[in-house]
């Protein structure tokens, strides 16, 4: 009976997730009965997300574990400020995705399944909400699968387009392997420690003897599973194909929200399970890893690999969507280096980076979507001379690309500044240097697009017709990209409040 009481108590902190679930059901049902109305579904999704956002703000953070498993008062779920920050990012990118979808030609032309599209977007969001807050390997795996299954279908949503179907199939095959490897790692970790709760795993690893090799294998397998979601280097192969083939609205949400959820759970898992809290120096905010295996060394290698591979491959791309896919791999590499230093500064830098990455990356995808809807192509060569035919769109795209490179006065500079400063402060100078060199490499391929748009004669017969909605959404993304480059104090303060992971 006490367990039941705990569940009832836990529901008080679960309103945002319940709101998302209801959004999913309502969208599914409304589509069945009101097929004619064109704007009803997106409007209902937006209302649902706003209500979810309202509950996210008003629901207090739980003072203990939710959904207790009955052993040692630990539970399956936790709401803390760290999860809240990532939930905000996920929610914002979902709202933008719905707004993009209203304007997207690609989505509106395939009218037969629009109900499922918006409903799956909500279940995708729900999975990511669950993933950011899970504290048990079982809930982590279930949430992980919920995110994956929704995104497989969404990636192939315009299934009559061959490359979209191909993207979906490739995503499923890679995803199945990744989650298979991950659940194998989970099972080994469970066999080693006798528990699936990550807090108890930490307790066991700190106090009992165990076989280090087994732990390393299990840990690497689980990191591989998360690495698939954030497109970390050896698990990044799906990214370019899926990003290129999927409808561009879905590419946008995959590159921001799904990556945010992956990062949230990667940081939570590594920090909670493998950090030695007895040896952690709280004054200097430095953590110590449990003796046996230095997880940050392998992450440093993966981070360098991820950013270098992403940037070098992006140099050769002619398709803009594909180029942005490789660039998003590179950004995952930069962000991963924030964890390597094992310091709250690094986590702070990752949080700031994600908020800024949200605006600049969604912005870039939005402009690419608007241009390719008119142009019918995402080829960089077809962008030749567009600068004079569509000045508003191309100038916006230039600002987003400049921000992605990390040049002041855009927000991208602040993101990279905080990250590299944290690296230098904690003595990881070589990693900071690799990051800076990579940023310089990225300048080439971002600026190639700008060069094509502005410095070459036009060959296309592109006709520009700017609508009010396009301008409004562009500005809502442009303003944060520019303002956070100059006035970033509120963002830093919000991030500083959010670095605290429950329990420690």
């Amino acid at each position, binding site marked *: *009976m006490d367990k*039941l009481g705990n569940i*009832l108590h836990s529901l008080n902190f679960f309103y945002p997730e319940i709101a998302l679930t209801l959004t999913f*059901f309502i969208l*599914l*049902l409304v589509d*069945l*009965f009101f097929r004619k109305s064109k704007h009803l579904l997106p409007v209902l999704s937006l209302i649902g997300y706003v209500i979810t956002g309202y509950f996210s703000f008003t629901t207090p953070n739980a003072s203990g574990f939710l959904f207790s498993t009955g*052993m*040692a008062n630990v539970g399956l779920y936790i709401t803390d400020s760290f999860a809240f920050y990532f939930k905000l990012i996920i929610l914002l990118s979902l709202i933008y995705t719905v707004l993009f979808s209203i304007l997207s030609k690609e989505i509106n032309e395939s009218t037969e399944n629009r109900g499922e599209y918006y409903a799956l977007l909500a279940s995708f969001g729900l999975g990511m909400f669950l993933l950011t807050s899970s504290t048990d390997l079982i809930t982590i795996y279930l949430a992980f699968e919920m995110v994956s299954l929704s995104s497989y279908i969404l990636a192939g949503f315009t299934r009559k387009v061959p490359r979209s179907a191909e993207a979906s199939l490739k995503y499923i095959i890679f995803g199945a392997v990744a989650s298979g490897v991950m659940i194998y790692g989970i099972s080994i970790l469970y066999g080693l*420690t*006798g*528990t699936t709760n990550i*807090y*108890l795993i930490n*307790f*066991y690893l700190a*106090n009992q003897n165990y076989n280090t090799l087994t732990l390393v294998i299990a840990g690497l397998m689980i990191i591989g599973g998360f690495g698939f979601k954030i497109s970390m280097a050896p698990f990044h192969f799906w990214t370019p194909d899926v990003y290129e083939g999927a409808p561009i609205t879905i590419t946008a949400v995959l590159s921001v929200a799904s990556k945010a959820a992956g990062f949230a759970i990667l940081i939570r898992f590594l920090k909670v399970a493998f950090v030695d809290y007895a040896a952690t120096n709280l004054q200097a905010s430095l953590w110590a890893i449990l003796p046996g295996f230095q997880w940050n060394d392998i992450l440093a290698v993966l981070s360098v690999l991820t950013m270098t591979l992403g940037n070098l491959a992006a140099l050769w791309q002619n398709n803009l969507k594909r180029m942005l896919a490789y660039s998003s791999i590179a950004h995952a590499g930069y962000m991963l280096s924030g964890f390597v230093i094992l310091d709250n500064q690094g986590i702070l830098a990752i949080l700031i980076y994600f908020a800024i990455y949200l605006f600049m990356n969604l912005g870039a995808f939005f402009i690419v979507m608007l241009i390719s809807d008119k142009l019918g192509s995402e080829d960089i060569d077809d962008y030749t001379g567009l600068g004079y035919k569509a000045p508003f769109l191309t100038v916006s795209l230039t600002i987003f690309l400049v921000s992605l490179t990390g040049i002041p006065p855009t927000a991208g500079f602040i993101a990279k500044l905080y990250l590299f400063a944290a690296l230098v402060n904690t003595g990881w100078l070589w990693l900071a240097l690799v990051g800076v060199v990579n940023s310089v490499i990225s300048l080439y391929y971002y600026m190639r697009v700008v060069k094509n748009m502005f410095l070459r004669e036009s060959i296309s017969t592109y006709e520009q017709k700017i609508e009010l909605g396009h301008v409004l959404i562009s500005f809502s993304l442009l303003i944060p990209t520019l303002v956070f480059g100059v006035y970033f104090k509120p963002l830093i303060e919000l991030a500083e409040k959010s670095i605290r992971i429950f*329990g*420690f």
Partner: protein
Amino acid sequence: MFNNLAENFYMIEQYIPLILAILVALLFSLFLLKASSLFGPQKPNVEKLTTYESGMEPIRTARERFSVKFYIIAMLFIIFDIEVVFLYPWAVNLKILEDKLGFFIIAEMFVFILILLVGYIYLLKKGALKWD
């Protein structure tokens, strides 16, 4: 924060009865299968060895491909079958639970049924139950 946890770890020893039960079940069923051929009287003749002693002659292999529709029906059946699995323990314990939790416990099950009902309405409207 977790000083009193050590005794809470599930040890692998706790699973030994479970493994024993699985082993016994496996061996016993194997024994039953084998026992009839070992101990039973066996007097085969041509008539006995045909596929059906009485009835139609088999005309082709029974391993045919089924229409995919059967699989859809089977999947849908499982969804509502699971519902019953949850309803049973709920119904059995309702009296005890209601004393402690009141109307909440009844409402909760209706929420669960409502969720499945949404699924049912969805597949009904999508025509998943139409045969042709």
